């Protein structure tokens, strides 16, 4: 009864209006302005999505969300919503419900979202737009949602090739989707409107690049654990919005200050680690605290690498095409290998942890090949099996033993190389 009343509250825009200042006041005690802005953004987006004054579009993490802001719609990202639910340790029920409808091999974020749909805690979409990158489960998940909700689904098929044909193919799909979405939603958006959101995204991306550069500093000024939670949450969900721009301005300001003061986020930084994979376990777990205690800084995470080229700004859809086609996690593994190699060198990395999320093919499928390359650079490498959303797929003892052995390996290597 209490749960159903609580769920009812979540569906009311008024609830989010009331809770927004209270929650922001509470989290502002931590004196982490970017985090406060993230919380504020979530309250705003949930309020707007439940209010339904603007159309709501469900989309996947790797579809450029600035396109949806440009259309004049409110984006809703079920995958990130699942991560948020995991943060509150409430995924068991939804995952169990979602698993009744699909294979338990499917990524737990999607299974969780399938279950969350049953609880009706996600605002119903007016349209679904998704793209083929990078998660393998994306198309099937959104098509299932489209059929069960009776909502149209527009899909961008991004090819593995990155040649002129591929450019034409992707751009024509974006043009088609732009017009189709306008027709379905009855919007009067012009390409110039799209340009405004893209301009906002361009300014935000420039901040993201500056942040990526600042984070090369020693000691590591910003924790990768936060990078993989609300920072990547904002880059997936808020790019192209004013709130996204304000968030990255605040984040840059914070990191810049720490770098100037030569302050690391750890008391004593013993090792610098690169975290591979776009996610980490979001339910309560001791992994990040364990690394922190051992003096292991997650200096950078591939989740936040701004991979796409700077936008020209003249043709928004051309820029978007470039962004989609330059994704290093999609297509031949060589792109990702180059990225990891560059990150290891630029961030002065002592060890690489590849989180191997259960059911994730596109990332863990290449984990061994990436490992071979990292090891050939003389850098210790650990594949850490686990699950980002399902706490029942996580074994604390085994995970901590693997991590501790990895740290011991780095320690011995450090002693050996320094005599």
């Amino acid at each position, binding site marked *: 009864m209490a749960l159903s009343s609580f769920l009812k509250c979540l569906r009311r825009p008024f609830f989010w209006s009331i809770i927004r200042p209270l929650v922001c006041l509470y989290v502002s005690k931590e004196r982490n302005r970017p985090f406060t802005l993230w919380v504020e953004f979530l309250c705003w987006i949930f309020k707007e999505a439940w209010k339904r004054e603007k159309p709501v579009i469900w989309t996947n993490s790797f579809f450029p969300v600035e396109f949806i802001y440009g259309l004049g719609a409110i984006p809703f990202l079920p995958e990130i919503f699942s991560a948020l639910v995991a943060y509150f340790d409430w995924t068991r029920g939804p995952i169990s419900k979602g698993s009744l409808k699909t294979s338990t091999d499917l990524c737990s974020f999607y299974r969780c979202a399938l279950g969350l749909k049953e609880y009706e805690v996600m605002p119903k979409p007016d349209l679904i737009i998704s793209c083929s990158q990078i998660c393998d489960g994306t198309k099937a998940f959104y098509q299932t949602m489209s059929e069960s909700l009776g909502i149209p689904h527009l899909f961008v098929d991004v090819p593995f090739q990155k040649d002129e044909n591929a450019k034409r193919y992707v751009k024509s799909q974006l043009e088609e989707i732009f017009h189709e979405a306008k027709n379905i939603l009855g919007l009067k958006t012009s390409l110039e409107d799209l340009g405004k959101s893209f301009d906002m995204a361009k300014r935000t991306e420039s901040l993201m690049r500056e942040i990526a550069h600042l984070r090369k500093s020693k000691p590591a000024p910003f924790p990768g654990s936060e990078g993989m939670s609300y920072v990547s949450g904002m880059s997936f969900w808020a790019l192209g919005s004013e709130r996204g721009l304000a968030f990255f301005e605040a984040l840059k300001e914070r990191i810049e200050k720490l770098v100037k003061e030569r302050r690391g986020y750890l008391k004593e930084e013993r090792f610098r680690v690169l975290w591979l994979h776009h996610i980490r376990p979001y339910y309560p777990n001791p992994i990040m605290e364990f690394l922190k205690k051992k003096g292991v800084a997650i200096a950078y995470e591939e989740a936040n690498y701004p991979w796409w080229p700077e936008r020209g700004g003249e043709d928004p859809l051309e820029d978007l095409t470039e962004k989609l086609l330059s994704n290093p996690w999609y297509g031949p593994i060589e792109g990702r290998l180059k990225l990891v190699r560059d990150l290891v060198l630029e961030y002065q990395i002592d060890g690489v942890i590849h989180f191997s999320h259960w059911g994730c093919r596109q990332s863990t499928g290449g984990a061994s090949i990436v490992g071979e390359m990292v090891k050939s650079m003389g850098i210790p490498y650990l594949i850490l099996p686990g699950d980002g959303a399902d706490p029942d797929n996580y074994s604390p003892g085994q995970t901590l*033993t693997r991590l*501790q052995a990895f740290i*011991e390996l780095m320690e011995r290597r450090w002693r050996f190389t320094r005599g």
Partner: protein
Amino acid sequence: MALYAGIDVGSRTTKALLLNDEGEIISYHVLFTGADPKGASFRCLKECLKEIGKSLKDIEMIVSTGYGRKLVNFATKEYTEITCHARGAGFYFPQVRMVIDIGGQDSKVIALEDGMVLDFIMNDKCAAGTGRFLEVMAQTLEMSLEELAKEASRAKQAVPISSMCTVFAESEVISLIAEGISREKIVWGLHLAIAKRIASMAKRLPQGRPIVFTGGVAKNKGMVRALEEVLGEKLLVPPDPQIVGALGAALLARDLKDEGNRLNHHRTD
């Protein structure tokens, strides 16, 4: 005489071992861990000391390892089984390049270079390919572990076992018994199935030789035979493979002497 202790708190057994200043093994003891790993570690260490007529005050450093390593609150430091087995194996065979450790709860393969851990791989969170797996199979076949090992060491034929999940493998074994398949074939099939699983883990690491086999399961001659057959080479097995983790821990405790750490004796009282 200063003593250095290593305590390996495994899921099935707890092992304690004492070294002297010269790095010689003075005594060791093995007992079942049971439901009180912390108590077991203390009792095990006490037994070692009793054997040589020494007390806790004679111990300079203690290193704990194994899944219950964090529970040994009187230890100076804790290391993972990976580091400890690598170190312990190197004590007996300094040229070691790969260690296969099959314990009660998990199995690991460790690649070494110049005595240092280069890389490692652990089994999944299930009991497949571990000592516990063999224990359950022995119970299903109504044999003791010793009988199981003896049968495997002389078996000539095997029946393929496809399930590595302990629960499913148990049902598979029951079905095979019902089909009238001989115990010899089932036992050898089980050992080969584990050996293949371990070999596939080993193949994912740098292929250094020689290979040392450690952990309680290395006492099973049938398992040594199965691994040698699958890997196609002779394995080196320490005199008592079960205590290699505790030995590695004791050697690391001895190393700590130089690092200036001192045991806080009052915590052991």
